[in-house]
């Protein structure tokens, strides 16, 4: 019998005996639904953290000097060396950022009020504007940041200062030696961001910050790479570190957030745990239900054997039926998962203490990566086939005479 015919017979059997497969299909699709949903949520959380982290630190991969005091090349030579290393490593970043950060007791003043700033970020709007626009702005025009005296401040800072868009604020920093310096800035926009990534953060022009700190205009403390897929950050950082010949280090942004990355790792492990547990339950369930199905179809199998279908062909037909079952379960599970995730992401969850870092504008975010879905689908299919293999082997051993005689 041709393989095409095996598939055809299996398909006919599958559609005609659909009632028998409903329970089985349901359990497999529920399993796929859970796996898919949990993974998408974990991926969504991870994506949120990485997006926020990249915006805060200036990229998914951060390149910094091994020692800040190492004999410095000129900023231009340094930049050229790093760009060549990026090119040598075969990396194609979506954007390259140059940042100066100041986090040593900066203070902003307005209307007599003062707020201590945890991190002042000097960046180039021309290269990073696209990424920074991803912040949730509650007022103002972030595009006016192309003016050098512009500043983006958080909603919390704005409230504490009593400052609004268009107001002047004074940023106080310490120069390298420790002397106080101040810079007048104009609030161009106010953004809403979660605590660790934004309550006390000011975004401003790098050149202006450099001048205030007493550094060269084109100085940058770090160079960052924004990637199209943040999941490649670890791999790319390792590759780039080699290309940088030990003069600079390249690290994925999650290494700057050790607590969060530990939590994400734990969540990922939990999701794999759920996946393993579900796989086991599905495999056992399929095995048992298939045994019952094969028992119920003893006469039918006997008839197939009586009309000349070989033992291996019987096994293949049953395995093909299991394959159809797996594909339908994956499709149904995926559809339910998308529906459920879409519904959950509509719920406003702002105010959930400690959870806000995972939310996208107050909503739970989820990401369905095709490669993850493909792996899950293959896994569920293999489990279904594995569960059906034992009963299929039993079926191929059925003698036609005994089978036809069976009640």
């Amino acid at each position: 019998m041709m393989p095409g015919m095996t598939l055809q017979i299996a398909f006919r059997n599958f559609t005609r005996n659909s009632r028998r497969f409903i329970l089985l299909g349901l359990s497999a699709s529920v399993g796929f639904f859970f796996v898919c949903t949990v993974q998408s949520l974990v991926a969504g959380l991870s994506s949120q953290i990485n997006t926020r982290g990249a915006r805060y630190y200036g990229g998914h991969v951060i390149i910094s000097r091994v020692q800040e005091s190492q004999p410095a090349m000129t900023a231009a030579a340094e930049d050229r060396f790093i760009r060549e290393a990026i090119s040598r490593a075969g990396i194609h970043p979506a954007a390259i950022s140059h940042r100066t950060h100041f986090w040593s007791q900066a203070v902003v003043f307005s209307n007599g009020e003062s707020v201590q700033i945890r991190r002042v970020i000097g960046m180039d709007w021309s290269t990073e504007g696209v990424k920074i626009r991803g912040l949730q702005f509650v007022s103002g025009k972030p595009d006016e940041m192309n003016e050098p005296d512009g500043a983006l401040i958080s909603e919390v800072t704005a409230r504490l200062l009593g400052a609004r868009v268009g107001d002047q604020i004074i940023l106080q920093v310490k120069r390298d030696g420790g002397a106080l310096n101040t810079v007048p800035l104009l609030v161009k926009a106010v953004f809403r961001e979660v605590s660790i990534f934004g309550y006390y953060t000011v975004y401003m022009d790098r050149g202006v910050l450099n001048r205030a700190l007493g550094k060269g205009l084109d100085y940058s403390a770090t160079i960052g790479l924004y990637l199209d897929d943040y999941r490649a950050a670890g791999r790319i950082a390792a590759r780039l570190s080699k290309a940088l010949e030990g003069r600079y280090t390249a690290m994925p942004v999650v290494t700057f957030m050790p607590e969060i990355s530990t939590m994400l790792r734990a969540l990922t492990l939990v999701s794999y745990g759920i996946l393993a547990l579900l796989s086991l339950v599905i495999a056992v369930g399929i095995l048992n239900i298939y045994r019952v199905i094969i028992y119920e179809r003893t006469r039918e199998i006997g008839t197939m054997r009586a009309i000349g279908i070989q033992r291996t062909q019987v096994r293949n037909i049953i395995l093909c039926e299991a394959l159809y079952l797996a594909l339908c379960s994956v499709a149904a599970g995926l559809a339910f998962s998308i529906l459920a995730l879409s519904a959950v992401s509509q719920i406003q969850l702002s105010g959930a203490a400690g959870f806000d870092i995972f939310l996208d504008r107050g909503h739970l975010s989820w990401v369905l990566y095709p490669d993850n879905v493909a792996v899950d689908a293959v896994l569920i299919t293999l489990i279904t086939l594995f569960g059906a293999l034992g009963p299929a082997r039993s079926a191929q051993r059925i003698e036609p005479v005994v089978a036809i005689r069976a009640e």
Partner: protein
Amino acid sequence: MRILSRAAGVCLFLAMSAGTFVAPRTGEAQAAGNTPDFVQLLKKADSLVTFPDSDFSAQYTFVQESPGQGTNSKQAMVFRRDKDNTYLIVIVKPEEDKGKGYLKSGNNLWFYDPVSRRFTFTSAKDRFQNMNARNSDFTRSNLAGDYRVTSSTRQKLGKYDCWLLDLQATSDDITFPKMRIWIDADGLVRKTEDYSYSGQHVRTVAFPQYQQIGARYVPQTVVIFDKLRGATINGTFVNERTTYTIARPSLERLPDATFTKTWLEKLGE
């Protein structure tokens, strides 16, 4: 009487800090040919409030007035040994801050918290106890070394005939890179205006009264106006202000153990 005298002094300096000056007399002074050597003038100002031959201890009482938010007061004991460029400050009031302390030794400054029993590095440039004073305000004066004079003029500040000097820091590690300073005929600093590197007026410090101990002087009251912090009250911007008074000054020698972490820990207990 003493309270009245102190109040009068503070009022005088409120007026001084508001800019109640008589017209400058630069030309007159220079024409008379009695322009002093300003480096010597700064050295004299330093020497009058520095104690290289003895230790110094006193009780400091700080009162911070934040417009619209009330006042906050603290009391501290300050121990200085200028020849070693060291000081130790321990907070004695209020109760919740009691035992907190600062130990400066050379260029290192530690903050001690008796609750966690830990020393942490801090900077002389930081604000003292979140007030308008800075940790550097308690060190020995080194105007002649830290600054160079960029311009000068004679100016009357209240009842004092002063030299008004514009100073520029000689290095980048001086907290206030620019300063205007009023030095009276006795060589005592009567007022300073502290500026950031970019020229932003950050604070004004007034020294309305000094108390004499031997040949040296110790301010009796110091008023610090924060030019960036404050609030608008009834349509007028009122600066945040910290006033500290120095009482029971003494130049008696202190035990060497005073300027140690162990002693600060002991005080914290």
